[in-house]
């Protein structure tokens, strides 16, 4: 997995392949269909002398899901017979570009519109362009209800055609 950082440098998280299976089982408590890998919040996962060291980065500064994710990671590795130490890192700052393609598809299927690129996102959130497609009927005839949604990372939209209210995962790059 290669992730972009600030559109300039490509930053690949250092994750040891044998740890992937366990990491994949830990999900974002607020969007349970996404694993921590899909979300791109694992910056590093290495095993040293039987202890797994994980570096986790928050999506938003005040994201309350971080403590839960951290506990869930420890529990998941405990079940696999390993001790895990989770450390929170702030730099580089998380970007919605780090969400994997598979993650975006899972998000859409779950009823949350995936983040657009930065320009389209700005237009969408300023109500200048209709670019966010309804997760229910696919229509782009949607409107912004609020720039802030049910969690820090989402905005609230509604479809003008089928009337479905839905969340849009905000672009954060």
């Amino acid at each position: 997995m290669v992730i972009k950082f600030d559109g300039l440098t490509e930053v690949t998280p250092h994750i040891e392949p044998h740890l992937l299976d366990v990491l994949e089982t830990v999900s974002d408590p607020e969007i349970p269909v996404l694993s921590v890998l899909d979300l791109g919040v694992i910056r590093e996962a290495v095993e040293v002398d039987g202890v797994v060291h994980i570096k986790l980065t928050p999506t938003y500064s005040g994201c309350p899901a971080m403590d839960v994710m951290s506990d869930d990671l420890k529990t998941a590795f405990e079940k696999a017979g390993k001790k895990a130490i989770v450390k929170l890192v702030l730099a580089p700052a998380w970007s919605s570009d780090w969400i994997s393609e598979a993650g975006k598809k899972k998000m859409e299927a779950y009823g949350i519109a995936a983040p657009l690129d930065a320009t389209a996102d700005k237009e969408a959130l300023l109500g200048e362009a209709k670019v966010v497609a309804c997760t229910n009927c696919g229509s782009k005839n949607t409107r912004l209800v609020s720039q802030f949604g049910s969690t820090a990372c989402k905005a609230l939209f509604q479809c003008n055609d089928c009337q479905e209210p839905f969340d849009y995962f905000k672009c954060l790059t």
Partner: protein
Amino acid sequence: MKQDTLYQYILGIADNSLILGQRLGELCGHGPTLETDIAITNISLDLIGQTRSYYQYAAGLCDDGRTEDDIAFLRKEREYRNVLLVEQPNTHFGYVMVRQFFFDVFHLLFLKELQQSSDETLVAIANKAVKEVTYHQRFSSDWVKRLGDGTKESHEKIQEAVDDLWRYTEGLFYVTEVESAAVKDGIGVAVSSLKDAYYEHIKSVLTEATLSVPEHSFFQKGGKDGIHTEHMGYLLSDLQYMQRTFPNMNW
């Protein structure tokens, strides 16, 4: 730079976010509509999250086992360094939005400068926060325009809020000794250099909102030196209640 000066400098930044975060948190469940209620709480959460990063960093600089909670909950009123603007009480929604707008414009300019600091941790926090505050400013500017250019009543109410809160804006650019020292060492932001850009931006939004820009030149002093308005004590008694009543309690 002396550790203590850095510690004080970090608190000066963080206290604004803590106090405004607390003010906005008071509105949880009391917003005029569900969407604005959620938005206000989201902004509060971002600010408190940023505060935690700053306080954790500051606590780590002390060797006395101090934690972020000690810094947030166990200081006396005069030890808080926030500007007067952010401690002003919630009255009506328009007032809350003007207070937010006046702070957001400053906050974003400030964070963009902090991204150039020579202190790596402050840069990391600023890089994260700048993305969040961009949304805050978008939200508050939008409401200032909507209410200013809205009905006769909304226009009157928001104009009143602009006139009332204007006197606290100058305090954002007051430079303390700690800040001067931090600027000298390449760590801090020279806030006085942000002033022109700040007022220019504020004026352009107010004009677009069909609001008039206040002309009176009296500005309330205090805040950054620890001298607060009467509202601060009430806010702190709420904020600190649990830690004062049950010392060292934990979730």
